[in-house]
């Protein structure tokens, strides 16, 4: 089974994904797991490998019954792309991730994000 899980987590200074001094990150992920507890364990492991300590689950649904939307991380194209990368042995794959510094700044100029917002 695959789950689509949006979460927020604390981002360590040394995380490979911390490139703008952010304290946290919000991500939407596709997660493998036979049941929800297993999926959450896999997500925790996947996140910790990248220096992320999940602090809250924002949304969680089973992918087979999920209908894509136009929201970042939930579009058909983003899900399809992440599914291609999600192998049976994989723990998880992000469909979308944004740092707290980027999310908090509404005035920053978006470069190359058109594909996200136009979906």
């Amino acid at each position, binding site marked *: 089974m695959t789950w689509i899980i949006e979460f927020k987590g604390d981002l360590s200074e040394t995380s490979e994904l911390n490139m703008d001094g952010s304290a946290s990150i919000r991500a939407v992920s596709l997660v493998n797991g036979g049941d929800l507890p297993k999926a959450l364990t896999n997500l925790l492991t996947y996140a910790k490998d990248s220096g992320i300590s999940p602090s809250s689950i924002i949304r969680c649904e089973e992918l087979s019954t999920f209908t894509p939307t136009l929201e970042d991380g939930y579009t058909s194209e983003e899900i399809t792309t992440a599914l291609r990368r999600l192998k049976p042995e994989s723990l998880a794959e992000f469909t979308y991730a944004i740092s707290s510094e980027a999310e908090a700044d509404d*005035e920053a100029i*978006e470069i190359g994000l058109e594909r996200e917002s136009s979906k």
Partner: protein
Amino acid sequence: MKGALSLAECRPEFKVDCTLILNNGRDKKDFILRTALDSVAVWKSKNTEIPISPFQGKVNLTSKDAAIIENDVWVFGVDATKSQDVFAAVKIGMDYYKAKATDIIGDVYVKNLNTDHQDSLSKHDLIIENKKLYSGVCKAVLEAAKLLGVQGVINFYVISSNINHKIPVQDLHAALKDGGAEKIETDNIQYKMWSGSNSGQKAVIIKQNLHLASLKI
């Protein structure tokens, strides 16, 4: 015909926008030459869904794997801290685009360079290694440009957040100066863009700054 050179690329999804210039300006480029440290085989294994048209780029008696990807020439196995690698990549780009060296290496872009040894380093040592990386790339670009007969000023653009723990802005500027930059400018514009991890396996939208180092030959 005006082009640009983007070094140390990973996945096309996070490739550098080489039209960016200071103060949120745009400078249209007719073609882009991109290089990746990965071999073409490793790159393909990370990007199985991306169609590529591979070819062998020949430089004197040696050759490098290259490919057309989304209309850009990519050259693989390029260590951007090695002038011979940069030289070979630019020569391949010159042959393909029928362009002069200066039209490729005149505008160079790098985004969020980070040493491969991050996990084994303290924060302090990581900054030192990344400073060496940036200054090493500057020196390699300058040396390659000399070998290619380029004269004048090279615009070396760096995309990196001012508060990047891996190399804060003061350290970045010091590294660029050590690499030969005569002048470094950073504007006040903030950008949001995708940036990938070293392996390219994960990416996140982050806040960035644009820096311009002028490398004079």
